[in-house]
């Protein structure tokens, strides 16, 4: 072992001292372009008129990170862009809004410099980062497979980064050989044979100790947003490969660094550069095309014509939009099958200040798998929790949330708790993408395929960081490039 491998982990924010956290937005979300005010509901909130000749008209369906990125790219390339968003806000599966008097992210949150597309945007717009301390806290509270509560220190479980990395190598043996090019899913196809293995099957055969299993179960059930038996092992294999085959880095990647001001702060920069006409509360129910152009029909029967479409409707929702000619069968079948991502994310405020900690609990039947200590302020603690399903915890039942929190903090009193109902939202019908066995590879080509003048962009079928903000931006860039190529030729 080299000296480097023995170097201990540095945890600058471990222990009771919390990082300062500025309250960045006092007003509600309605002050910005990301949610419409009464005066502009359903209308154009950013109706920058195009001057002079445009190169063509492009409709972007959906205003999440994929759609806003595509809108910006095309707007800056001289196209007239009309962005149609079904909800009365932009953001898609990201949503910065109010909880306990602060602006927090209800959906996608964390980013990292190993995610090239989002990191490029962070640098481009000079965004600052904040940290979710619980992801790397020295204090650990974990629940074992018998339901018993334990307190521990991260540095005693894994004294060095190398010690931590070793358990990930046990769970992902031969990862480099299986997936040497994680950003290129159609090359070096050795990984494809892992697509039909579930996370649970791999756990059962991996020779991990109990604490290793508890931690990896907690991490994978959280990140798979479902019980491990329902998610392909290849999913987080790709994250792990992107993280340079390091467990320490992968832990930082998923749940640690977030954008100051929330995801909304970055999205406002991106869409602000688009010059697009943005129509909120404008669901599209039919999309038609012929060799001359495209038409969409909104739910108020308005017909909008254009030269091309970037369709960012999520995988689980695509089946609800009528296409003529129809979607290719593979897209429809995947949409009907749905992906596995359907877990819970809940913001919780406690009635007193607790020291920073990370809470781990295993199992697809647990109400909460992961508790992330976020901050303390004015005598309260803010936690973020994840669970595998709304069946194991009713997010809207505050007493049930408190009961679940008390497994970790027996004396906790919950002041308030809120989790956005992504599974009940007709425009997401789930959380971030997580592949059922066979979906990592089996549906990717179908989902990515353009159909004539319609180009499909979503983090749900990104090449690199599938299910992440990074993947959405990647897809927005690719779709915009396809449109440019098509309309120029």
């Amino acid at each position, binding site marked *: 072992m080299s000296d480097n491998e023995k170097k201990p982990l540095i945890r600058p924010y471990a222990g009771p001292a919390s990082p300062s956290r500025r309250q960045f937005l006092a007003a509600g979300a309605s002050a910005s372009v990301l949610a419409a005010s009464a005066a502009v509901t*359903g209308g154009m909130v950013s109706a920058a008129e195009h001057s002079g000749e445009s190169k063509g008209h492009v409709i972007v369906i959906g205003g999440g990170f994929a759609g806003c990125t595509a809108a910006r790219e095309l707007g800056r390339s001289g196209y007239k862009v009309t962005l149609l968003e079904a909800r*009365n806000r932009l953001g898609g599966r990201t949503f910065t809004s109010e909880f306990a*008097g602060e602006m927090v992210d209800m959906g996608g949150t964390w980013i990292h410099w190993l995610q090239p597309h989002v990191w490029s945007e962070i640098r481009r717009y000079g965004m600052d980062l904040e940290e979710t301390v619980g992801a790397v806290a020295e204090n650990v509270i974990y629940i074992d497979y018998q339901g018993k509560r334990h307190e521990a220190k991260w540095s005693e479980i894994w004294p060095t980064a190398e010690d931590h990395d070793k358990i990930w190598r046990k769970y992902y043996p031969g990862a480099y050989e299986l997936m040497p090019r994680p950003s290129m899913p159609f090359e070096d196809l050795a990984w494809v044979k892992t697509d039909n293995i579930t996370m649970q099957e791999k756990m059962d055969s991996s020779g991990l100790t109990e604490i290793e299993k508890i931690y990896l179960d907690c991490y994978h059930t959280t990140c798979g947003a479902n019980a491990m038996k329902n998610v392909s092992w290849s999913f987080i294999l790709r994250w792990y490969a992107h993280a340079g085959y390091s467990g320490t880095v992968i832990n930082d990647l998923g749940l640690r660094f977030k954008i100051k001001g929330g995801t909304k702060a970055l999205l406002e920069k991106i869409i602000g550069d688009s010059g697009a006409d943005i129509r909120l509360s404008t669901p599209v129910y039919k999309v038609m095309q012929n060799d001359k152009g495209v038409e969409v029909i909104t739910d108020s029967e308005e017909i909008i014509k254009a030269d091309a479409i970037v369709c960012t409707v999520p995988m689980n929702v695509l089946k609800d939009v009528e296409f003529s000619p129809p979607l290719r069968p593979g897209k429809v079948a995947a949409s009907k099958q749905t992906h596995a991502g359907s877990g819970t994310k809940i913001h919780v405020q406690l009635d007193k200040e607790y020291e920073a900690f990370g809470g781990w609990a295993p199992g697809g039947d647990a109400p909460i798998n992961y508790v992330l200590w976020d901050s303390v302020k004015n005598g309260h603690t803010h936690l973020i929790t994840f669970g595998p399903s709304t069946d194991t915890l009713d*997010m809207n039942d505050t007493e049930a949330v408190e009961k679940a929190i008390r497994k970790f903090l027996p004396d906790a009193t919950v002041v308030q708790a809120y989790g956005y109902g992504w599974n009940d939202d007709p425009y997401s019908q789930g959380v971030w993408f997580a592949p059922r066995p066979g979906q990592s590879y089996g549906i990717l080509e179908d989902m990515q395929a353009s159909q004539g003048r319609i180009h499909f962009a979503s983090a749900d079928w990104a090449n690199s960081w599938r299910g992440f903000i990074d993947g959405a931006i990647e897809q927005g860039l690719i779709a915009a490039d396809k449109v440019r190529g098509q309309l120029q030729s």
Partner: protein
Amino acid sequence: MTRHIGSGGLAFLFLVLAVAARASDNCDVVAGAQATIKCVACHSLDTSENGVGPSLQGVYGRKIAAYEGFRYSRALRKIEGEWTAEELDKFLLKPQAYAPGTRMAFGGLQKDQERADVICFLKQQGG
């Protein structure tokens, strides 16, 4: 168990308490106010402004899917009538069952008493 309302809702709560004597039977306006904290990510409770969802100020007794300036889903537009206690109770139990396709991303309040408290609070607020 003691629960507290967030500081942002305190002034509002005082207003509610001032008129709590007029509350309906078998419901707790203060508990209702506490429960509506779940609504504020998307709705304004104490202003007429629409957010991600329509303003809830005066929603009790209002015609369904008719608040000025908000574009409702087809699902909700199809429903006739007013937001009476009975209709609100059915909607809040499971919004997607009451109006399949509603844009309200909320799984519902399963406890009968909590729904009754929320409805009490909304009724007070419109008064």
